[in-house]
């Protein structure tokens, strides 16, 4: 059981106002007039069935997608005018392994660290520290192409936190990894959170979210349909024993396949 690491409310780290996204040619909005405030130091879970709008929301917050309407700020920085400062502030752990397979773990990390302006010994030391925590020290000079899924996930995470971001977005960071890798990843994320990083976490692993997140929002059809601390949501839902029960009662049991 992971220890929840809510470090007291200082202010809104992320403030989202009426944010909407409709993809070109789509009939419906992927995210529709969404309002959300995430406090500094939170581990905030974005939960929802496939196609609910979680990845779209994270992509907009990471400057990867242009919102159709609405706005947001991160640490009071506006996403339109202060994009460069905003990028320096955030990290993203994408769902895919965003790494160069032909490069070693160290080379990948050195390159992505350099893109945040980190250089020389400090960068080198940071890389080796993270590799050690993640149990990858002896694989530092091995090519990522030869890594297992779990190892790639861990390197993928390190590449996003070398610059010690204030906000870290995680899009399914533990998908497809074994229990050991998952524990190391979650443990390291909790450590980051303790040191002040706000985490915004999207996942289908509801047990993991229940234990890991200080607060969750269940999103469906681009809207927040319920939000709160996991324990409170479970307690308030009739016949619910865990977050999965809450999730199914709010989103239904129908399949959400779409193309």
């Amino acid at each position, binding site marked *: 059981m992971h220890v929840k690491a809510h470090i007291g409310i200082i202010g809104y780290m992320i403030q989202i106002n009426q944010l909407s996204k409709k993809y070109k040619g789509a009939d419906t909005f992927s995210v529709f007039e969404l309002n959300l405030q995430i406090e500094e130091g939170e581990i905030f879970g974005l939960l929802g069935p496939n196609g609910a709008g979680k990845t779209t929301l994270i992509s907009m917050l990471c*400057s*990867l997608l242009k919102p159709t309407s609405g706005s947001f700020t991160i640490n009071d920085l506006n996403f339109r005018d202060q994009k460069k400062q905003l990028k320096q502030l955030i990290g993203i752990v994408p769902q895919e392994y965003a*790494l160069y397979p032909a490069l070693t773990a160290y*080379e990948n990390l050195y390159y992505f660290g350099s*893109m*945040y302006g980190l250089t020389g010994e400090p960068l080198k030391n940071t890389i080796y520290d993270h590799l050690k925590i993640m149990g990858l020290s002896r694989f530092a000079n091995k090519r990522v192409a030869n890594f297992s899924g779990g190892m790639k996930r861990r390197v993928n995470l390190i590449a996003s936190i070398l610059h010690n971001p204030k906000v870290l977005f995680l899009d399914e960071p533990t998908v497809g990894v074994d229990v050991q890798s998952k524990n190391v990843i979650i443990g390291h994320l909790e450590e980051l959170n303790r040191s002040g990083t706000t985490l915004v976490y999207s996942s289908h692993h509801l047990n993991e979210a229940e234990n890991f997140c200080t607060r969750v929002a269940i999103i469906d059809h681009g809207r927040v349909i319920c939000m709160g601390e996991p324990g409170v949501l479970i307690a308030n839902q009739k016949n619910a024993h865990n977050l999965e029960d809450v999730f199914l009662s709010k989103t239904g049991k129908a399949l959400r396949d779409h193309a």
Partner: protein
Amino acid sequence: MHKLLASAYKEFLLLIRDMGGISILFVMPLILVVTITLIQDSTFKSIKDVKIPILWVDNDRGTVSENIYANLTKSNTFNVIHKDTEEEARDLVFKGKYQLAVIIPANLSSDLGKKIDDNVTGILSQFGLEKGSTSDSAKIAQKEIRLYFDPATQFAFRSSVKNGIDKMISQIESRTIYRVFQEQLSGDGTKITFNAEGLISFKEIVPTRGDKEILPNSTQHNVPAWTLFAIFFIIVPLSINMVKEKNQGTFVRLRTNPVSYATVLGGKTLIYLCVCLIQFSLMLLVGLYLLPTLGLPQLDLSGRLPLLFLVALFAGLAAIGLGLLLGTIAKTQEQSAPFGATFVVILAAMGGVWVPVFLMPRYMQYLSNLSPMNWGLKAFYDVFLRNAGFGAILPELLLLLLFFVITTGISIIYNERQHAV
């Protein structure tokens, strides 16, 4: 600067990790230039190693056919093979066994002699030097030397053969006219009345460097042309590299990083420019050391190395600009690789790598001015063959640079618009 250098170092690592790819990048252009130079070498040689076998049907067996035959044999271009009938020769040519059959009609020599004899007699009688002839030249039928070409032969070959034979006949006719005049005027033809030697001759003046003439040869023509072709082929691996980044997700990560697209492209430009210059150096080394061992002329670089590298540098920039644009726009390798390869061939064709620009139709000549390969080729030929200095190639260098700036600029703007937030 640190981000730019880190990007360049990453590109360097990606390149050297793909040794198969990098070998192809360097070795294939070398094979290309050697192959093309070997093939085209005969065009430039005065003594040719290869003779084209042609068929010869002589129905005349007179002085004219002997003369044509002697000239064809003497030209060292053809290996003349005798055949008895026109039908046999025609069938063999139309089946593609031979490229050409020359059919000399019966009585060509005697009828030509008669016709000239009658004409000369007629002319002299006008001056009262000869009694009016009872010319029956009008009854002499028009003679026709028949040429059968293999349909696969190119127009240039046909034209060259036709012109050659036409010239031979003209010479024979002129000599015969002189001879008949001499015979008619001197009675027995022993007294030399005319100087039949041609008054007009040709002398080809070529550019010189010091006292040394710059003689065009297959190496001087092919090394720059195909080096340029190879340099532009860089757009294929470069665009694939960029499309791969999109598919790997690394490009998405870079978009979340505080680094500009221009910096990312700058890193690629630095490394791929080095690749172009290494490619170019290898081509020069091949021209200097390998081609002579294959019996081809040695590449003459005397004093031109700095200018040549300057042209290669700017041509490389233009090629990289195009690669960056293609890599930015293409979404899959299936889009970038075939398009890149085909487009380079089109640019090469337009640029005059295969067919010289002056031989192209008028509108294609205008279009060729739009091909960066044309600018590069002009600059290379100016340096290699025309002994030009920096000032002469500056316009081409500026065009190549402008092309790089425009294509890279479009890439950056396109990327911004695609991913504007």
